[in-house]
């Protein structure tokens, strides 16, 4: 088998709270292949989000190794990391985290603009993505004028803007009603199937997790179980 898309080895991370050390991650290893669709489940506070942040290079672990597309992440400088996040990752968070001053279209186009695409082509691809998530009519609305489900779909479109290799979703449906959540979910699966984009979805919705082909369970800072359907 060829080199994995992402390989995290022995990731450990601690926090200090009132002088007490809390070990959140105690040696987590994950391997993600191209086109994988993985769910990461666990109780609240089990370190799911922290692990996602570490994998997304938004947070630094105390120890461990993270190799993404054959390159060791901890040897990169800030600029290389930024580029990695820009090109290779798409992030979707529990709360949509859209930029409030910008319209839906501008939000979706933002990663392209950051990658220094010219405005015209960035807005063109953003338009296409909005069409894909079915929000063409809401394109000039600001996040404050969108519903929760719509915002989350815009956020998903933004994450797909530069066709990343890996989608990192942190409870993308946590704030949504079941029907809307299901819609987002099917969209995720569709993206994974059609575009071949791997996805790591953090959730505590067991039912949703069950529908994904691979399940990881995080318990007390370690991967407790790997279940494959």
């Amino acid at each position, binding site marked *: 088998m060829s080199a994995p898309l992402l390989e995290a080895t022995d990731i450990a991370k601690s926090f200090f709270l009132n002088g007490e050390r809390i070990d959140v991650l105690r040696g987590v290893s994950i391997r993600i292949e191209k086109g994988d669709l993985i769910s990461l489940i666990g109780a609240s506070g089990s370190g799911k989000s922290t692990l996602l942040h570490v994998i997304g290079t938004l947070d630094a672990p105390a120890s461990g190794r993270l190799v993404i597309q054959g390159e060791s992440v901890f040897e990169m*400088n800030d600029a*290389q990391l930024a580029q990695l996040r*820009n090109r290779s*990752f798409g*992030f979707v968070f529990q709360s949509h985290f859209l930029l409030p001053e910008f319209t839906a279209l501008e939000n979706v186009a933002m990663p392209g603009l*950051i990658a220094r695409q010219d405005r015209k082509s960035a807005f063109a691809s953003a338009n296409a993505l909005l069409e894909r998530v079915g929000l063409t009519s809401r394109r000039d609305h600001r996040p404050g004028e969108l519903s929760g489900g719509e915002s989350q779909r815009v956020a998903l479109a933004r994450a797909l803007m530069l066709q990343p290799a890996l989608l990192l979703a942190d409870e993308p449906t946590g704030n949504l009603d079941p029907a809307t959540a299901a819609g987002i979910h099917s969209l995720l699966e569709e993206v994974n199937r059609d575009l071949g984009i791997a996805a790591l979805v953090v959730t505590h919705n067991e039912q949703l997790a069950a529908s994904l082909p691979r399940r990881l369970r995080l318990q007390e800072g370690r991967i407790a179980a790997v279940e494959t359907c």
Partner: protein
Amino acid sequence: MNEGVTRRPRRSLLLAAGLCGAVALGNIGLGLHRADLLRNQAPTMLGIGMSWGGLPAAARAFRNRAAQLPQTLERTPLAAARSYLLIGLGFWLAGAALVGLAFGGLRRVRSDPHKAGVLASLAPASGMRSDFHWGTLAAYGLGFFLAESMVVLAYAVLAGRSLASDGAGFEPGVGFAISFGVGVLIALVGGFVGASHARRLAIPEATIAILYFGLPIPIVLSFLSRSPFLMMKLGHRLRELVYLSSLLGESRPELGYWLVFAALALALFLGMTIGFVATSSGRFDARFSYERFIASRHVGVFRPGLIVSVLAVLVLGVIPPLILLGIVRAAQAMAERVRIRRLGQTQPLEAARALHELEASAQTPTQLMTAISVGGVGVGVMALIIVLSVMSGFEDDLRQKIVGTHADGVVLKSGESMEDYPEVMARTRNVRGVVGVTPFLMSEGMVAARDIMSGALIKGIDPQSAGSVTDLPRTILPGGDLAWLTKPSSIPIAPDEAALVEEAARTGVGEGEGAPVELLSGIILGRELAAQLRVSVGDRVNLISPLGGAIGPTGPLPKAKAFRVAGIFYSGMYEYDSKLVYVLLQDAADFFNLKGATGVEVKVADVDAARSVMRSILDVLDGYPYRTRDWGEMNSNLFAALRLEKLVMGIILSIIVVVAAGLIVATVIMLVLEKRKEIAVLKALGVPNGGIVKIFLTEGLQIGVLGGALGLIAGLVWCVFIDRVGIRLDPQVYYIHALPVRIVPFQTALAPLVAVMVTFLASLYPALKASQLDPAEGFRSE
């Protein structure tokens, strides 16, 4: 990823503490060395351990010490100078060694794997942060040192040549501008190279570079102006530098050196920030596309409403626009409310939308803060422009009066009066740039009318040509005439004297039977002098010279001669109007027993080029025994004082801009706090730290640019208002009718530039803070 924020402040703290300690030690050493110094410095020394307060204290001690240096040097100049040099060098090396040890130690700690591991578990990213950059230190230090030496050397070469007789060099001002520009450029490049090498601002390196490579030159130059020995040894090589600095203030050439030093330090810092911002994303990237896009949305300064209201406040003051705004808002709200109510009855949905829009249009606190910051910068720039323009107006007025009464330049002859003045005039007239020439004779004496007496400067002139050089003919008040100097018979005789003469003629006492009124030569007095002597046109006054009369038993007797007032002039300068009197050149020569003239006055086409024109006149006249002086040289003290005043005023007013910069810091910090989540999102979307810096720097800069532009407009509006409409002054008090104003393009442009630079520097700190925010922290706070 986290940039290891925690490490850097600690290190610079260490450095600052070390430096303070060193300064304190030096100070204590000085104090012990001289007991009275210790007594004087005791209060300031208390504060030393805590802050940079030690620096001024040390500077004062240093100055006291330096004041004694000349005497010490005079006693044993060479040995003392050498010992001081050695002590200085010793301190320099010791400091360098200390710094080297400190940073070497830090690096060892870092490279120790065990300690590094502990460190990493606390602040993981610190393992990725590189250490002290010696290359950066070299770039900063060499850049700064080179910049300083370039200013000194280039200036000495450029302006020094202008003193040579070929006149191929530059005017001192131009020469300085060129060399200073080169120096600033070098400092900028040094900062840029250093910062892009380190990929960070590298403040510790810069501090060391400035202290260790930058300080020695201004210190040596300051010593130069204090020590006659050094002046003798080095001064002639740097005479132009000394000359220029002395223009700032006769007794304080150091001020000039330190100002240049500060400017170069600023240039270095600017270079550093530019280098850091442009290359912090790993490679050179000066593009601002999405950064500007985001920044504009954040601050939203370029809104017509904001621009108009800030401009209105700047031009009209606070109250009128506020009242106006109140009226407009009230009317708007009323109209809107009526509209919504009407919509509500027919289309409730539409009405709800309109209401929502109305609420959304209300300003957020940050937007209000932004508007206030723009206004603050605007006020600073406006004040700077108005005050400097008015000061220029006063300076111009003064110059006008001086140059109008005296000439732009004079040709004099050493040691004797100029008998060959017709020839000198003929040769001078042909020099390029000369517009008019006239001979003059200047001496001192007294003017008396009846029993009132006053000292006076008596100037003999040629009425025909005087008008081509000075404004004298135009300043004669109605009732008098300059031409009457040559035709004394035309002067109307004062009625009381005429009556007296008639009386004498009738009674046959005095002048002789039927004698006409005595024909007296004409004299022209200043308005104040005429008022003091209580004379007007046609009255008799006596000129008295203490010398020049016949020799009496006790020595030379005073000599007196009667003149008739032919006119009264009003130059607008109290000193001239109360002291100067004009008579015919020949009359003056006769009266003072002189031949010819004192010299020749010259008017040039361009007043600012007076110096070079006078120099070429001297060339035409083959130098000695002739010499020339221009108006600037003749009044150098006055203009130096004015220039210093303006400089100090400019610096004081810049404090307003600095206060406004404080506002900008607060605003941008508020923005950063408000946008913490968005900063995290932007980082997740792939904006590097440099990009975040650029975004918030742009936000601060937009405030600064808009504030500067609005201040510029408002300042110009005010200047035009003062110029056209005028602000009356009491001429009895100020000797000027209205507030003068002159818009000098250079200094006017400087004000907004200073503002933009200050805002750039001000927004740097919050921008750096924003870039150091931990994205994971930003998401966690949700």
